[in-house]
Structures are given as C-alpha cells and as structure tokens.
C-alpha cells in the first residue's frame, strides 16, 4: 500500500514560473488561529490530505476554488508558534516555507493568519515569517468577534508598521476574503522590511510584538465574562467533575446505544445490496470474488461509518464549544496515574465502542509521544466487535448462577472481568511504553483553555466530511487488499473446478498446521481457522465457527453452543475470550494506526505485542482452569 506513503502532488503547476506571479501560497498561523476553517473556505472543501514523508504531520493541499482562483495552489501548514525547529510541526513548516520539502512546491507567497482576539501575542509569529522575505498578506481572523467584544485594531497602521498588507477577515463567516484575491492579483513586491527583532529569541519577539501592537493602537477585547462564569460552574470542585461525568456518560451511551443499531442497520442494508447485486451477476467465481471478496471487504469498512460520524459529531461539538479542553483539565489528574494526559480520556472512552474512530480522535492530543502511547493502548479497550464471541462463549460455558444478588450473576461477572482485563492491559502497556519505547524527556501538559463559543453547523459538517473521507480513502485501500487476500486463501486450491470446503482451502490447511501451537490453549483446528479469519474483524469468528460446525456432519444437527460444548473444555473456552480480549484481531484498526502514525512500524509492533500477550494469557488461563476443573 504505497498510496498512502507517497506525497500527492495534486497536478501542481509545472509551467515555467513567471517571476512575480503567485502560483502557490502557504497558509501559516499559530494553533487555534482559525487557519483550518479558512483553508476549508478557500479550497471549497476539495483538498488532498496526506502525510509529509517520514513524519506524522498531515499535509493538506488544495486550490483556491473558494475565491475563484483555482490556478493557485494553497498549502495548509501545521499550526506553529515560531519558526524554530523545536517540534516536528515547526520543522515541517520551516522546510515547506524554505522550499526544502521534497514533493511540495516552494510557496511564492504567504498568508499569515492571526487571531485578532490575542493579536499582541500572535504577532510574535509575524517577525520570523516576515523575515522569510516572501510576499505576505496578514489576515486578522475573528475580527468580527474582537470588535463585538470591544477590541480595536487599525489595519492600515499595522500594515505601515509591518511593511506588508493587512486585512481583517472572519473565516467562519467568510467575510473579507476579497483581500486575498486582491493580494494575489497584484505584482508581488515586498516593501523594504522594517526593523525586525533579533532572530530566535522569544523575549525579543514578545517585546517587538507588544511594541507593534501599542504603536498601532491595538486594544485587546475584554475577556468574556461568560467564559469565566461558565468555568466557575464547569470547573467547580463539586459540579465540575459531576457535569463531566454526565457529559462523558451521555456521549458514551449515545455512541454505544445509537451507534450500534445504526451500524447494524447499515450492515443489513449493505448485505441486502450485495444480495441484490449478486442476482445480476452470473454464479461462479466472479460473483464470489465480487460479492464475498470485494463487497464484503468494502462493507466491512463502510459499516464503521455511522459510529465514526456519530463520535466525531460529539467531539466536534465538545471541541468547538471549548468544553473539550475543560474535560481534559478535569481528567488529567486521573489519566496521569496511568501515564497519559487528560486529552487521552475521550479517545480511550470512545474505544469502548470502537477503536477505529477512537484512534482517529487522538488527533486532539498535540504531543506526539503522548498521542502514540494512546494509539497503542486504545485497542485493548473492549470494543463492540468483541461482544458476539463473548456472548457466544459465555452463554455456552458459563452457568447463570447468582453472585451478588439476583441481578449480578456469574455471566455478568465474567463479562465485566473481560472489560477489566482489557483496561488493565491498556494500563500496564501504557506504563511499559512510557518506560521503554516512548521514554525520552518527560512530556509536560500545556493546555490552552479557549473561550466558550457556540459551534457552527458548517464547521461540524466540514469535520464530519473530512473524517469520513480520510477514513474511507486510507483505511479502505488496506482493508480491501486484506479482504481479497483472505478470500483468495479460503477459495483455493480449486477442487474439481469448484471451490473447496473451508477446511480444505489454504486457510483451512493453515488452521491444521497451527493446531499444535494452539492446542496448549485448549483450541482445536476449527478455532484455529476462526482465529485466522477473524484477523479481518473480531466478529468474523462467530460466522466462521458457524460455517465450520454447520458443514461438519457430526455437528450439523446441533446448535453452535452445543457443538462448542462438545468440542471444547471450559479452560479452552475461557482462554478463547481472554485471547480475544487482548489480541489485535482487527484489520481496520491496524490500517488506521498505520495511517495515523504514517508508518508500518507501529501497527507491526502493536500486532506482535498484542498477539504474543494474548497467546500467553490464553495459555495461562487454559492451564489453570483445566487443572482447576480437570
């Protein structure tokens, strides 16, 4: 799958460059300056998303369709505070601005986006950007909000002071964008630069920035009294954590209880479409390949969409409103005990529904190491795809005896233990990672608390479209390939020109071959085949076991539960659910981890680590239980 590794060039201009004309602009700005909103506005949502080679920093390129200048390409750089190469983000930004990033065209001009609510601080970035000596347009974003709160700035005075044009805009409302078209239309010539501060010194930048804002009569808006009053409640010692729990439980409950039926309904719909399509295809291997191979693969990806969209809708509301930062602040103390920070809370929680959107949600964690650690432990959380096999095994092997009263029986107890097992595994792994692979310097927790704001429908929709596209494009390709390989392995070698029974196929034979390895866990070859096919997705094992026991004459007349009871000991059965609690049986997750870390290294480490851990735990479980009940 090299499609996600190479840098897309997006048919960028290759005509000879005429000096003075602008063909590529870079969008530069500090984090939270509204840069991404502006980028979406300018490109009309048609953009190419990839990773810069070798790093996890996302590259976004588009064309200025939104202002009718589709001949100009625009590069959205990561949000940065300065041009010192301290962080990965800043290194990428500096390389792109200097035209030293392979595969990315050197920008002819810079659009510098600054948040006018905090202009005197944001101006610190202007000094190093202006020192690049590229034609620069400074965009004072959220100027409507600043003026509404009694702030004031004189763009003309600022332009005079900085020697470059300045425009007031509002990216969320789309006002003032004409200035960009104007800027692109004129011959680019840079005014002789003004006095810039000493390079690389934060204190001198700060002094310079406050000097500029004073000389240009900048008046910062009053900090919103609403925000502080809200915080008096939402960060209150008693109400804060209580409201936090209410919010978290609501999100979890809705993603879990509404997302699950939505996914199931969507699955039914997709299956029905497959059945409908198969009626139009001639029976035979083409039908099987297209329906069981391609369509199954595609729908196994599509089926995650409702949950992803639902989760991101909530995260969008929480983040845009400003509550997510408060939630991270409240959760930080608890998350720290397991070696993660407060921002890891929402991803870990949503992983109880599904690890795929959860891993995508780790983007809110800016710190790379912290984010990687969260990504690596997330799949241990008990996701909904584990439930079918849990329910099957528990119903078949665990008697329904009361443990704590009538409502908490032995079955519920086993189920809860599996949830706890996953959580403990995540906790131990996080600790382990922090002291080995991801050690290095301690990572401080620096959290900016933005003012509360009402999320706009538009930005929520943009977020959903963006996430859906990234997920389908990147994960879809990997999963499709794996599904095809699995389909092929379970349909060859041909037997008298027809497909072989599952047990005779290559995958079935591998099931037999690995039987000696899994016998100590209490598994037979049928379970072995189930373990192999469910690498695609955990719930697949139930279907596979159904097929295998259903085609075996000896067990044909039995229900799956009775057939399993005939074939397996309690030790093996519990070992099986323990294996599923810990193993990485999910191609979608692996594909998303690959996508989010921009390397095969991490999904490979994760897969091997989780499989080995699952094997050892299942081995121990089986050996203990068989002796106990032997």
């Amino acid at each position, binding site marked *: 799958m090299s499609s996600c590794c190479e840098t897309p060039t997006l048919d960028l201009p290759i005509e000879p460059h005429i000096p003075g004309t602008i063909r590529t602009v870079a969008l530069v700005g500090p984090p939270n300056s509204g840069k991404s909103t502006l980028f979406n506005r300018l490109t009309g949502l048609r953009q190419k998303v990839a990773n810069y080679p070798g790093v996890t920093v996302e590259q976004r390129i588009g064309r200025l369709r939104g202002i009718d200048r589709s001949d100009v390409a625009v590069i959205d750089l990561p949000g940065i*505070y*300065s041009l*010192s190469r*301290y*962080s990965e983000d800043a290194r990428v930004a500096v390389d792109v601005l200097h035209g030293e990033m392979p595969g990315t065209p050197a920008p002819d001009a810079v659009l510098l986006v600054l948040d006018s*609510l*905090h202009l*005197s*601080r944001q101006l*610190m970035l202007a000094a190093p950007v202006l020192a690049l000596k590229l034609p620069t347009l400074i965009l004072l974003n959220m100027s409507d909000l600043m003026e509404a709160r009694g702030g004031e700035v004189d763009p003309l005075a600022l332009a005079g002071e900085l020697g470059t044009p300045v425009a007031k805009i509002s990216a969320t409302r789309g006002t003032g964008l004409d200035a960009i078209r104007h800027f692109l239309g004129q011959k680019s010539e840079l005014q002789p630069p003004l006095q810039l501060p000493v390079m690389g010194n*934060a*204190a001198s*930048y*700060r002094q310079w920035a406050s000097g500029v804002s004073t000389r240009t009569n900048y008046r*910062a808006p009053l*900090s919103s009294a609403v925000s*502080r009053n809200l*915080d*008096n409640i939402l*960060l*209150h*010692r*008693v109400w*804060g*954590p209580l409201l936090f729990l209410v919010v978290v439980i609501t999100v979890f409950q809705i993603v879990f209880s509404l997302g699950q039926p939505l996914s199931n309904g969507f699955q039914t719909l997709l299956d029905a479409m497959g059945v409908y399509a198969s009626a139009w295809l001639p029976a035979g291997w083409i039908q099987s390949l297209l329906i069981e191979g391609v369509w199954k693969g595609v729908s196994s990806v599509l089926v995650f969409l409702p949950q992803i969209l639902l989760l991101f809708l909530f995260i969008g509301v929480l983040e845009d409103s400003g509550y997510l*930062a408060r939630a991270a*602040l*409240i959760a*930080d*103390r*608890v998350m*720290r005990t397991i070696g993660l920070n407060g921002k890891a809370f929402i991803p870990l929680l949503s992983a109880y529904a599904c690890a795929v959107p959860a891993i995508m949600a780790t983007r809110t964690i800016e710190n790379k190491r912290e984010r990687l650690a969260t990504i690596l432990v997330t799949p241990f959380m008990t996701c909904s795809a584990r439930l079918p096999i849990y329910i099957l095994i528990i119903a078949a092997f665990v008697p329904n005896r009361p443990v704590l009263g009538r409502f908490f029986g032995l079955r519920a107890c086993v189920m809860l233990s599996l949830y706890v097992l996953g959580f403990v595994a995540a906790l131990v792994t996080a600790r382990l990672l922090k002291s080995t692979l991801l050690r290095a*310097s*301690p990572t*401080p*927790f*620096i*959290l*900016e*608390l933005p003012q509360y704001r009402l999320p706009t429908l538009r930005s929520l929709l943009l977020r959903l479209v963006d996430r859906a596209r990234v997920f389908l494009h990147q994960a879809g390709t990997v999963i499709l390939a794996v599904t095809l390989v699995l389909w092929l392995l379970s349909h060859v070698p041909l037997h008298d020109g027809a497909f072989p029974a599952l047990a005779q196929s290559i995958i079935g034979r591998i099931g037999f071959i690995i039987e000696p390895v899994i016998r100590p866990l209490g598994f037979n070859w049928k379970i072995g085949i189930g373990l192999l096919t469910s690498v695609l997705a955990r719930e697949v094992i139930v279907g596979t076991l159904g097929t295998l026991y259903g085609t075996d004459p000896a067990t044909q007349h039995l229900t799956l539960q009775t057939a399993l009871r005939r074939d397996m000991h309690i030790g093996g059965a519990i070992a099986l659910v323990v294996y599923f609690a810990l193993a990485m049986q999910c191609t979608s997750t692996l594909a998303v981890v690959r996508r989010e870390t921009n390397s095969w290294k991490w999904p490979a480490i994760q897969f091997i680590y989780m499989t080995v851990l699952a094997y050892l735990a299942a081995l121990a479980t089986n050996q203990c239980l068989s002796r106990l009940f032997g």
Partner: protein
Amino acid sequence: MIERSDHHLQADDPSSRLYPTLGSWLLNVIALSELGIGKHGIVEGLDLPGEVQHHLMHMGFVPDARVLALRRAPAGDPTVYAIDGMEIALRHETARSIHVRIIPDDEEQEGSEDFLLRHRSAAGRQGKP
C-alpha cells in the same frame, strides 16, 4: 506573608518545598506553582528543557510578563493561569520550574476584574478542607 496561606493546597509534593529558599524569599521570588489563587506575579525566568521552555515562552511566559493564578482544576492540579489574555493550564511539576516575583497586594489596582476575581476565589477557598 499572605502567600503562605496557600501552601497547603499543593504541599503534598516535598520537592516543591525546596523552592523558595531563604534568599528568594527576601527577593519575593517563588515558584509559579506556589502562587496563591487570585494572586499576581511577574515572570522572572524559566528553568525547563529546551522544547518545553520554547513552547511556554511563545505562549507568553516570557520575563516581565504578568501572570495571574486563576483557578485550580477540581482535583487540585493542574492550575489555570491567565497570561497575556490567555488561559493556560499547567501541571504543578511544570509550574514549579517557572519563577515569578510576587506583586504585593497594594500594588494591584483595586476595582479591576482581577480584584473581583481575587475576592471571589478567596471566598471559594474558605470551603476548602
């Protein structure tokens, strides 16, 4: 010293007591983590690893910047600081390495938003165990 009354809020970490030393007491320089809620300080310097220090300085923690300890998270840590018109939360372990000079109460302008805030949080503090 009034600041001392706030020591119990984060006194569980013994290393925080290494600072302030006697000399810095005389100069009124303390660790930012020791700054009581509702109190103002002037940033004197930072003593953190390169990347972190750089990041914080670009978020406004530069020498001579005025900082206000705004509120603590419900669990007592991190603490939210107002600096340069922004609200930034730092853990105790980070704030410990930022040195601030206390602004004596009589130098603060009364009647300001900060003044009201100080009184509000002082009232809230009485409920603390």
